[in-house]
């Protein structure tokens, strides 16, 4: 088990601005008591709609946001504790293990730095390789992500979206991480370029043995790249299973609705869509019991009273629901 997240919770306080003082009026329950594991060399997909807490989980895992409570273990070590308390050298060592690829490659590259500077900046921070090897390593990284040597002295604005995302990947790889959290790495790219980046991520995983957390709201890319998938709704994981198991046998009403909502590129296949009524409720005052119950087509009495626990219903298939769809329920 390479990465383990235990009861991770993140609440953001909400303030009301008074005349003199601010008053705390509540919390956004962005992530609530979430636990999961990622195996070595595996890609775990995290799917859900905007505001479901996917990005917050990834940021808390890497301590880019301090979690309100809960811990993250990386190769058995409590990373959250290290980030909180340990010395700078230990923190840097931990940072080298875990890296982040941001959603928007247009915003995550400094427009005033050349590609060479961008990729070598981690060397300057970490000093994990001697200075005389920096250039060689930088060219090596460029090649690894499919860029050419002459790209090194260019600036980010000279590149297309796909190439920029390659630069971001090269920068993340500069410290030889074992774990990368990729936050919607292809959401802002065109379809033909999307395929290139997805293939690159897969190649790098095979070559370097990297573990990924792949965040996306696009279920079709998730099916393509992930080994296991966790489905989130309003700060909670509602279902988690092996990719094929989840896609063939979705049990949670939200997962089923999510899958049925995706348009399939085949005009002959007319599917029965489950249209969820309403919108995702506010995470400031999440609904009681199961957070999905106000929109759920299969809700029963208990759903609004008690929160369903995440239990293993089939081998490797975890579910938090009192009244799931029967297995092999096909929505075609």
């Amino acid at each position, binding site marked *: 088990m390479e990465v383990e997240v235990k009861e991770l919770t993140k609440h953001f306080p909400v303030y009301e601005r008074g005349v003199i003082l601010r008053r705390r009026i509540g919390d956004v329950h962005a992530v609530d008591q979430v636990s999961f594991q990622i195996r070595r060399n595996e890609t775990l997909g995290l799917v859900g709609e905007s505001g479901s807490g996917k990005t917050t989980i990834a940021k808390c895992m890497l301590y880019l946001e301090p979690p309100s409570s809960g811990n993250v273990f990386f190769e058995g070590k409590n990373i959250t504790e290290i980030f909180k308390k340990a010395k700078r050298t230990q923190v840097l060592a931990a940072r080298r293990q875990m890296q982040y690829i941001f959603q928007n490659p247009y915003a995550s590259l400094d427009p005033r730095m050349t590609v060479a500077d961008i990729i070598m900046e981690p060397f300057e921070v970490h000093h994990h390789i001697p200075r005389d090897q920096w250039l060689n390593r930088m060219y090596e990284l460029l090649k690894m992500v499919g860029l050419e040597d002459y790209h090194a002295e260019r600036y980010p604005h000279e590149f297309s979206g796909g190439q920029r995302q390659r630069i971001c990947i090269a920068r993340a790889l500069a410290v030889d991480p074992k774990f990368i959290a990729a936050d919607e790495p292809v959401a802002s790219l*065109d379809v033909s370029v*999307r395929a290139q980046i997805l293939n690159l991520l897969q190649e790098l995983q095979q070559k370097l043995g990297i573990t990924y957390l792949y965040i996306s709201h696009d279920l*079709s*890319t998730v099916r393509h790249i992930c080994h296991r998938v966790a489905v989130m709704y309003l700060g909670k994981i509602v279902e988690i299973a092996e990719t094929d198991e989840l*896609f063939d046998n979705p049990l949670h009403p939200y997962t089923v609705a999510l899958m049925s*909502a995706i*348009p*399939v590129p085949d*005009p002959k296949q007319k599917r029965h869509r489950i249209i969820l009524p309403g919108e995702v409720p506010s995470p400031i005052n999440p609904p009681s019991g199961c957070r999905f119950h106000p929109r759920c087509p299969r809700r029963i009495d208990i759903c609004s009273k008690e929160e369903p626990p995440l239990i293993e219903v089939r081998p490797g298939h975890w579910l938090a629901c009192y009244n799931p769809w029967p297995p092999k329920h096909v929505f075609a």
Partner: protein
Amino acid sequence: MYTDPILRVEGLRTHFYTFAGVVKAVDGVGLYLNSGETLGLVGESGSGKTVTAQSIMRIVPTPGKIVEGTIEFKGKDLLGLTEAEMRRIRGKEIAYVPQDPTTTLDPVYTVGDQLTEVIMKHQHVSKRYALNKATELLRSVEIADPQIRINQYPHELSGGTKQRIAIARALSCEPSLILADEPTTALDVTIQAQILDLLKALKEKFNIAMVLITHDMGIVADTCDRVTVFYAGQVCETGTAEQVFEKPKHPYTEALLSSVPSLALRKQKLSVIPGNVPNLIQPPSGCRFHPRCSYAKQVCVDKDPELESIEDGRSVHCHRWKELELKSAVAS
């Protein structure tokens, strides 16, 4: 009932005169739309889909200019009309649903103001009558509590509701043609499903023809009767959704279809269209797709192919469509 194509575009060229040079954003586009039909315009960003729609509305932003071509709407040549005549058509006969509802609703006016403005302008009715009509419209796009919503400002509403209001505004004068420019790109999948269903239902109810711009092949297969595939400011091919998805005639369509990750099939590796979308200031010689086309021959480099009409209303923009046996990656 109008029997000829309600909209016919021929040889449309819209160029942007920038400091860097002339960007040939739309270069010889031809398409037609029968009344009551949905035509999908697909292509990557920068392929000229939006500029085509803007040209039809004659709202091309500066420094863009319609250089030549004919746009016939119900037998009238739109390019020959004066601005005053055009203003009577815009919003009344042809309506536009923009991509991002957050930026197209005016933040300082209430929903009611924005809806009644259009109604009063085109139908010369009293404010009270227009407000009643606006409430009706909100009900027809399935917004709950229209009386409350009508007095709210855009920032008080969610993305899905804002898009519904943009649709209501487009419907307000009972247009015969709606141009929907990526109406669901900014929305979550479950909300996207709601909006697509709504558009389909409204289209049927009011017998409106629709041009749906999207880059998502799934949405096209789901909602469109016919499809026009764009590449670098030109049309690659046109046909019914079934024809294009099952028997693509243009190499770009084939490549596009096979680079889409599929929910149903899990492929080992996604096929990739090599290279990037070309620069439209100096587009490639001959056929614009030839540098990325795996079937390109010398003739493709030398000569730009004609947009040829072939059997049953299809047209193809390729020298080699007769000899090529293209396969569809999605046809089951």
